[in-house]
């Protein structure tokens, strides 16, 4: 694990036990996030991105229901490396909320309705520091100020329902940042918000990251947001990483047909002259996790599928240039534009 790597995920697999069988939600996911870096994880609903993020902090349902395999290492603020999946629960709890914190998608339901905002922030502070109750509350007020909430004194004793969605998400961010984490996982933090508020929250996150140099794992399905905030991107499909690249190369030269499809489905101002039907959704649906195709998971929806190449076995995640990886049996021939 290189010195500036904060989070190192290796072959992380998460599966759920259901009456219908074992449902693989994430399969052999590997990636790294470095200090001060923003890694965006992109994919449709059900691609396994949320599950992966929850599994990193071991916030998925407990053991018999849910199985986690692989290795997740976190370099805490004191430079010590922790093997998260092997830690006893008590040690894991100490890291949660202090070294690594999380912001969730639904600001409307993610705060406890019966506790005051100030108390909810102070609670996190209290359990990870030696501060007194008074001190924790002072710190909470500081944090509210930091995330740009006006009239801090009044807001400290407000209840969540008295705040707008954007405000609540700021509070969530304040809670997450309360112990100056080295890693922040943001799971679709702007999806539930209005576009203007979205932009403000993104800016806030970006600002805070610049200031604290924390690593940011940003999960989203919105490619517009990715372009704005990410340094590197991993694309998830049916529980697997299918492409990984720095943000510019990915947008300029996506190699995986799925990524190409995703990009084509985003309206773009610079291509406003294009015909409408070119703004196409990818045909078909995400495959049933209980009946995944034996080969490439995307093959059934792929326009470039060649049965002999794509249906036999799962393609490997191959290197395709500097820091660019792709999981497609045909990426090379497709990139050349030549017939197979």
């Amino acid at each position, binding site marked *: 694990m290189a010195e500036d790597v904060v989070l190192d995920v290796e072959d992380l697999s*998460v599966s*759920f036990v*259901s*009456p*219908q069988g074992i*449902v693989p*939600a994430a399969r052999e996911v590997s990636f790294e996030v470095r200090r001060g870096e923003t890694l965006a994880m992109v994919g449709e*609903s*059900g691609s*396994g991105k*949320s*599950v992966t993020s*929850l599994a990193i902090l071991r916030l*998925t*349902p407990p053991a018999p229901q*849910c199985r986690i395999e692989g290795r997740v290492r976190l370099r805490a603020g004191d430079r010590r490396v922790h093997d998260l999946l092997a830690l006893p629960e008590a040690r894991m709890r100490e890291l949660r909320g202090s070294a690594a914190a999380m912001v*969730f*998608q*639904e600001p409307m339901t993610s705060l406890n309705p019966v506790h005051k905002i100030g108390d909810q922030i102070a609670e996190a502070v209290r359990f990870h520091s030696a501060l007194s109750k008074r001190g924790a509350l002072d710190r909470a007020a500081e944090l509210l100020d930091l995330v740009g909430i006006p009239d801090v004194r009044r807001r400290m004793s407000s209840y969540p329902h008295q705040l707008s969605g954007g405000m609540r998400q700021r509070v969530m961010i304040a809670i997450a940042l309360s112990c100056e984490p080295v890693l922040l996982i943001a*799971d*679709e933090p702007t999806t539930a918000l209005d576009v203007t508020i979205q932009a403000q929250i993104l800016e806030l996150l970006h600002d805070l990251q610049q200031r604290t140099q924390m690593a940011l794992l940003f999960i989203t399905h919105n490619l517009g947001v990715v372009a704005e905030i990410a340094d590197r991107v991993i694309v998830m499909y049916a529980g697997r990483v299918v492409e990984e690249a720095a943000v510019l190369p990915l947008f300029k030269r996506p190699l995986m047909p799925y990524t190409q499809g995703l990009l084509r489905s985003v309206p773009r101002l610079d291509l406003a002259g294009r015909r409408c039907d070119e703004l196409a959704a990818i045909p078909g649906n995400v495959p*049933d*996790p*209980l*009946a995944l195709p034996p080969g490439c998971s995307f093959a059934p929806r792929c326009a470039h599928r060649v049965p002999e190449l794509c249906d036999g076995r799962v393609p490997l995640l191959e290197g395709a240039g500097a820091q660019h990886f792709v999981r497609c049996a045909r990426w090379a021939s497709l990139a050349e534009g030549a017939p197979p």
Partner: protein
Amino acid sequence: MTSPVGAIDGPPAKPALTSRWDSPALRRFRRHRLAVFGAVTILVLTLACIVGPFLLPFTDTFIDIRQRFAPPLSGAHVLGTDQLGRDMLARLLMAGRISLAVGFAAMAISMVIGVCVGLVAGYYGGAIGAVLMRFVDAMLCFPSIFLLLAVSAFIHPGVETIILLIAFTAWMEVARIVEAQIKALRERDFAVAAEALGASDARVMIRELLPNAIAPIVVAATLNVAHAILAESYISFLGYGIQPPTPSWGNMLDNAQGYLTSAPWLAMLPGAMITLAVTSFNFIGDGLRDALDPRTDAR
């Protein structure tokens, strides 16, 4: 999609199975072991109460003074005798006829009232609905035993009156359930479509809306039988329900308290029968609730 459970939403439902006896609802009911136990118990109990008295050597009214207070499992009387030397088993079975009949009949009547009130209130809404539902609320303010006793104390009830009385104190919950269902259903396309086609109000209510609300109604009906059996036993125990010599599980207990020291089986047996029957109906109700609610399949 943030919730891990949401992320693994199962595959699309498989096409419905053809055989009635293999429907998902029935499968879920059979998997509910307590409900199956309840159903079997009620079946056996009902059969025993209907057929049993014909097979026994004693009738429930046969008085044998020499055999007073014979304990259970001593001689000819399997479950012993009471203070008049009457066979307990025969009396329990005859009492079961009355108690079960009261339970089913009161349920039927209360369901009719409850469904009608709920349908009208839910369908018309507005002032009619408000008045009906406030009436339901007001009725629910009276504790049922107080209401039952107050009325039955002044009219010297027979079995039929008891049934009516219990029904009149037990329809409100059903009305609430039906009203809520109908209110939600009537906004849906099929109801609007039927109305647009000029179907009469009664037709829309009964042919279009009611069948879609049947699941909670069936559950409520089952639980209502349990409630009615309990209610009968309460007022009979207190002496204002079914009057002796007609036996019911409740009034068999009426005199039993005095013999608690000398002949405890007089109190224990009828009480056990009530508990068994009521528990069974409650189990069935619980099983039906799970079986008729497709969401529980995922568990």
